């Protein structure tokens, strides 16, 4: 609260003369200032983070010229922008060939699959696209994982288990653009969509910059028609998009950013803390990941709206789910539906025997775990999710029958609360392995946490107020912000809801959110957790 008090005191004590003196000195007239400001916007240390001014300035330039240029040239301009976004990072320059390669191969495969009549030839091109996409993904993401695993297996048989890691750079958006392009070829093969003839539209579909860092993983049938027919400028859509971006920044910096301080300390120094803190760390990580990832997706979706495109929604309040299956229909929807359509259903889906159905679910979740990274922690996370979903499916009817006798379930609110809490708890158990991997630990760390929930050690207040040095005001701010976000999203899509609020109510909300970001946001927390996948 001292920060707010300080700000308030500053505002109270501020005088016009002070402001005039400041304004007179501010070098707005200096070309050097603008040059330096411009240079500061393009540090090129990593890829362009969505929560930085750099991205917002970049988006503003893209949008301005996008609407200024004739509509026919807009896809070309957006393609230039998308590659500009990609080439912004120095590794992007080195690895742009991967993006181009994936685009060219899947484009040609899509044309071939769409035009050829011979089934075997079509299948051959489909497999070419699948193998090349999986090959790229496998090499850049899993080569070291496979080498390490092979060495470990060899070690079991007494062979030398030491292995040197390959120096393979991380390709920005690899998991997203390969899945997007692969989904396109499969859709063409299945006849769901016609192949895209114009390479410009297709290249833009694969590389569209709002989606490339953390998704959502777009579907060709959804995005390509929009790219072909750009819409004119619409004030409400753009303003709504900007608010959606602000909403995402708020979630990312105020909630996820501050929670990350807490969870990082716990997951990197588990031995220091007691069981309660470890449990809270696991619970907090689930919410942190949700706020982080959904916040980034909000920015992506908002940016898409600013440019005139509707992107797929990726989250629908997953922690309001009453069952574990429902959670997966609300969490990372674009990836879940991708696995459903291209892995789970081709395996046979649910229209088969129960054991086969369960096996299909397990395979799908294991692949999903593997998609997240080359660590056994992610695989265990996927497997556990699969187990929970399977158990949920198998016991669904019996649980419903039992629920009828549960006196607590007579109250709808209590029933909802219990069900949501159970889902959240189970999800957090899985997340322990995810978090352990994300913070550089391994499987053992995940098991350590779950096995030490009764351990003694430093308590919550020692961690929060002692080690981390956080203030009670900040803790309250994060809690209230989370409540605000949950209530806001319950109301509807933020970009649409905000436009229904009258001007007098809307603008104070903008100011309030920006003030909270500036005062309480973890402004150093720029990268997204899912940006690393």
């Amino acid at each position: 609260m001292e920060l707010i008090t300080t700000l308030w005191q500053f505002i109270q004590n501020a005088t016009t003369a002070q402001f005039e003196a400041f304004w007179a000195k501010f070098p707005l007239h200096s070309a050097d200032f603008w040059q330096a400001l411009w240079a500061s916007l393009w540090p090129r240390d990593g890829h362009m983070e969505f929560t930085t001014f750099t991205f917002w300035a970049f988006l503003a330039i893209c949008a301005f010229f996008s609407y200024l240029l004739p509509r026919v040239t807009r896809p070309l301009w957006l393609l230039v922008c998308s590659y500009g976004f990609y080439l912004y990072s120095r590794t992007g320059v080195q690895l742009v060939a991967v993006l181009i390669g994936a685009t060219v191969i899947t484009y040609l495969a899509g044309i071939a699959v769409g035009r050829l009549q011979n089934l075997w030839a079509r299948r051959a091109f489909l497999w070419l696209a699948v193998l090349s996409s999986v090959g790229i993904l496998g090499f850049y993401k899993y080569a070291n994982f496979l080498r390490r695993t092979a060495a470990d297996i060899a070690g079991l048989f007494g062979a030398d288990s030491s292995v040197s890691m390959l120096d393979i750079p991380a390709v920005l958006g690899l998991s997203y653009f390969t899945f997007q392009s692969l989904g396109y070829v499969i859709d063409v093969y299945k006849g769901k969509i016609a192949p895209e003839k114009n390479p410009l539209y297709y290249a833009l579909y694969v590389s569209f910059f709002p989606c490339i860092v953390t998704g959502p993983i777009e579907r060709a049938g959804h995005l390509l028609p929009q790219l072909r027919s750009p819409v004119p400028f619409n004030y409400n859509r753009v303003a709504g998009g900007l608010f959606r971006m602000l909403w995402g920044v708020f979630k990312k910096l105020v909630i996820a950013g501050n929670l990350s301080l807490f969870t990082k300390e716990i997951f990197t120094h588990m031995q220091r803390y007691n069981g309660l803190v470890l449990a809270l760390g696991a619970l907090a990580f689930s919410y942190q990941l949700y706020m982080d990832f959904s916040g980034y997706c909000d920015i992506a979706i908002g940016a898409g709206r600013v440019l005139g495109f509707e992107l797929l929604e990726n989250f629908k309040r997953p922690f309001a789910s009453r069952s574990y299956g429902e959670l997966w229909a609300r969490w990372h929807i674009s990836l879940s539906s991708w696995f459903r359509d291209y892995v789970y259903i081709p395996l046979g889906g649910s229209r088969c025997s129960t054991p086969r159905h369960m096996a299909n679910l397990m395979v799908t979740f294991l692949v999903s775990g593997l998609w997240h990274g080359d660590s056994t922690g992610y695989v265990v996370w996927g497997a556990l999710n699969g187990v929970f979903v399977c158990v949920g499916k198998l016991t669904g009817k019996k649980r419903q029958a039992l629920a009828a006798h549960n006196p607590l379930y007579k109250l709808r609110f209590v029933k909802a609360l219990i069900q949501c809490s159970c889902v959240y708890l189970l999800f957090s158990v899985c997340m322990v392995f995810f978090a352990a991997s994300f913070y550089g630990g391994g499987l053992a760390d995940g098991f350590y946490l779950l096995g030490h929930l009764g351990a003694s050690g430093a308590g919550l207040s020692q961690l929060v107020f002692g080690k981390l040095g956080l203030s009670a005001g900040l803790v309250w701010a994060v809690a209230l912000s989370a409540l605000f976000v949950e209530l806001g999203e319950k109301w509807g899509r933020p970009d649409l809801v905000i436009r229904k609020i009258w001007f007098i109510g809307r603008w104070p909300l903008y100011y309030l959110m920006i003030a909270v970001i500036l005062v309480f946001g973890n402004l150093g927390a720029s990268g997204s957790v899912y940006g690393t996948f």
Partner: protein
Amino acid sequence: MNKKSKNPFLRAVRWVLHRAVLAVRIAVCLALLAPIPVFMVWFSYTVDRNGWFQGEQTEREIAIGLLEGNSIGGYEKMDERQIVKLYAQNLPASKEVIAIGSSRILQMTTTTSGSDSFFNAGMIGAEQTDVMSSYYLFDRADRLPETVIFGVDPWIFSDGPDANRGNRTDWEMYNEFLRYGLEHVMEPLDNTENIAQWVSLTNPSFFRENLEYAAENGYADPYPTVPSGELYEQEMDVKLPDGSVLYAVGTRERPQEDVDATATAAISASLLNCEDFYELDEEKCRLFDEFIQYMQRKGSEVILVLTPYHPIVYDEVMEQQERYSGFLAVEPWLRRYADEHGLALYGSYDPDAAGCTSADFFDGWHVRDEGIRKFFPGVDECTAYTAPADAAQLPRQMQEE
């Protein structure tokens, strides 16, 4: 049928109106959003935790306190260079007289100077660079004094390794002084850093740092304002509103034998900044000359003041004339210079010539206010230097000549 397509004129008007309304809406939005970054930048500029624009927050408060006529405690911890800079920047009107020099001139008070409009801009351990910069601070703030009392220390002419270490010097300010004060032809000053500092104001993280800094330091008071009734009871050094320093009660009331012991210990260790000083540095003499001319060009009358050393110290110097040949050469050179340029010169490094005794000192080289009064008559009484008729008023090394 769509109405728009019927009348091309109406369509054109509609098109223009639509875009005009849109432009107004966007302009209103931008105007409503603009206060946020402007406030953010202004706040960061005002708090200025790095001291890039306002000087350090604490030093700024001290400077403002002095300007408001307060005496501020905790002088020994202060960054005087910053304080003088901020004092000059915020000075509402020029002072008639300022004193520049090292801590050896800091006992010069309003009363001693003989002017009610006086500020002592002396700084501990001032090098030639600091002294010149301190006058320039008043020039760049357009607050030039009518008279400058220049406390000339011998080490500012030293060619020895002890001299001009510049540990505390504000080199950026000195460079600016050379370029714009003395109008030296130099490489253009690289102002990239300064521009980068302005740019940093637009960074939300910097805003946050400033907010946290202001919240943390806003209530602390390491430099308390000392009520005038309690000035002489303080156990810390106090900066008085005229810039002079009132030492802590322990220093002021130190027994004479302790003062003498301090002087003995000091000279047996080394003579402040004057070790291995064998001859005057030509470049520094030239810069000194340029500086004097610069002050005169700016319309300031210059009075040179040579504050004496403790008798024990000076006796030791006279005994080791070879070792301190540079030190001993300064005063004769200055007297000649003052004579040639018609400057007023008062005092002497030799306490005998200045008429001071051991009782006039706090330690080996800091003379009391009362001691200064013995050789300095006040600015109104000052006249151009003429060689004294009485040889006793000359330092011992000149008497031998």
